[in-house]
């Protein structure tokens, strides 16, 4: 490969030869040779051991710091006090009334919101005009900070369970609507064509194609919705309520009972985890049911 031949060859048509000769003019950059990065997986026990270790270290440091005074025990409380409060919370207070109140408003709001939202989303299949008309309202309601309306909801629905359910519903309904509508829009037009070629009515297409097709979409929001419903219920309790873990947290904070705040948050988290796991299980069962 020499440079001299370039002027002769150029123009004759062997562009490739020219390019090759030219590339000889620039030296090749030295390449860095690397090995494929490989990650080694630790055994499960090692992972769990480290996880527990971190937890113990945090609690230990917290306790130590509060005892020694370099963590302000008044603002942050300390693990031993929290544990003591936890015992009192369950033995003396009306813990179970609060838990069941929050649990009920969450579940009822979740069920109403998810069902109504899915039905609303599915209803958009029936008419493109209706869907187009509803579109801006749906988007408005989605972008609206629903929690900002919570005081109004309390005024309308009162201090009891109904207002918490209403807020939980408001938070969940829109997610279900939008997701189910996304499912509706994803229905294969050819699939609809097939149904119509078999002489199907719109109701038949809806029941035998659209609903089963959108079911996985509806199911996929269950886990998101359970979290949102809980948020709605707790915020409702923050604003005005006579029961519930949210009210307990607010009350404890206002009376500087920081240990009780932690206890209520802990119980609330446990409730959230239990509901999340249950819904995840429900989701996997339903998914198997719809075969997708």
């Amino acid at each position: 490969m020499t440079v001299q031949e370039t002027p002769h060859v150029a123009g004759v048509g062997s562009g490739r030869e020219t390019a090759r000769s030219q590339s000889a003019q620039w030296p090749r950059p030295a390449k860095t040779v690397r090995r494929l990065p490989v990650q080694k997986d630790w055994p499960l026990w090692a992972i769990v051991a480290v996880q527990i270790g971190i937890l113990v270290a945090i609690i230990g440091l917290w306790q130590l710091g509060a005892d020694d005074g370099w963590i302000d025990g008044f603002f942050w409380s300390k693990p031993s006090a929290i544990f003591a409060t936890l015992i009192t919370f369950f033995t003396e207070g009306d813990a179970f009334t609060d838990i069941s109140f929050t649990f009920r408003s969450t579940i009822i709001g979740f069920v109403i919101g998810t069902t109504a939202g899915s039905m609303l989303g599915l209803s958009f299949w029936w008419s493109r005009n209706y869907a187009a008309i509803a579109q801006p309202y749906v988007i408005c309601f989605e972008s609206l900070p629903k929690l900002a309306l919570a005081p109004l909801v309390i005024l309308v629905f009162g201090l009891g369970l109904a207002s918490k359910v209403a807020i939980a519903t408001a938070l969940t309904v829109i997610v279900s609507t939008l997701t189910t509508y996304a499912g509706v829009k994803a229905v294969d037009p050819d699939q609809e064509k097939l149904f119509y070629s078999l002489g199907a009515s719109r109701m038949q297409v809806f029941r035998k194609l659209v609903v089963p097709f959108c079911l996985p979409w509806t199911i996929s929001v269950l886990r998101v919705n359970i979290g949102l419903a809980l948020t709605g219920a707790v915020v409702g309790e923050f604003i005005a309520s006579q029961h519930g873990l949210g009210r307990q947290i607010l009350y404890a904070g206002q009376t500087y009972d920081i240990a009780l705040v932690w206890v209520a948050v802990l119980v609330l988290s446990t409730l959230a985890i239990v509901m999340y796991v249950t819904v995840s299980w429900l989701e996997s069962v339903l998914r198997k049911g719809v075969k997708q």
Partner: protein
Amino acid sequence: MSFKTPVGAFEALAPVTLNISQGRFVSLIGPSGCGKSTIFNIVAGLLEPSSGRVLIDGADATGTIGRVGYMLQKDLLLPWRTVLDNVILGMEIQGVPLRDARARALPLLRRYGLAGFEYLYPSALSGGMRQRAALLRTLLFDTDVILLDEPFGALDAQTKLQMQEWLLQLWSDFGKTVVFVTHDIEEAIYLSDEVHVMATRPGRIVESIPVAIARPRARSATLTPGFIAIKERCLALLTLAHHASLEAAA
């Protein structure tokens, strides 16, 4: 059966007249965009022609659905239904009780190569098997005419040959009138009694070529001079159409 199809708003189709007598196997071949699918959609009642009519057994069937069996390019099996429940879809929509529909479908599934797959979901089936299920669904939707839009287009060459034999078997067993769309000239000639070659801009039929090869046809029929002559004629027409459309574009 006869239909006269015609002119879309942007002239998707020039006036087309196509007469197909009962029990015949007829193919349409032509370049993409020549209106094969448009004709099918009009015949199936999924598209209202701007003018012209569809006549089935002398009765006007323009714009009415459910009169012919229509198999689209994709198999469109419902993933949440078993193969058996997929093939009875047409009967179910027509209001046949589920039990009767299944009882009618089961022996057919077994006889036509889907034995052992009846209660599986479509995701467990190969491409060829899915196409079989889709075709049986079309047949079980008991109509005299069935439209097949490139049913074997996505299959590999060997499966395609098997499916062609299988389709001919079904056709002779059921005695349906079949209209078949394909890109594959050899497939069209091998299967059909008559091949209609189409051209584009606007979509129209340029020539109808009868295939006078005795049935049942052996695969070796594709090597006979008669077959090759038809194939050459089709190729010539399609290449001509291709050049014409290039010139029109330029």
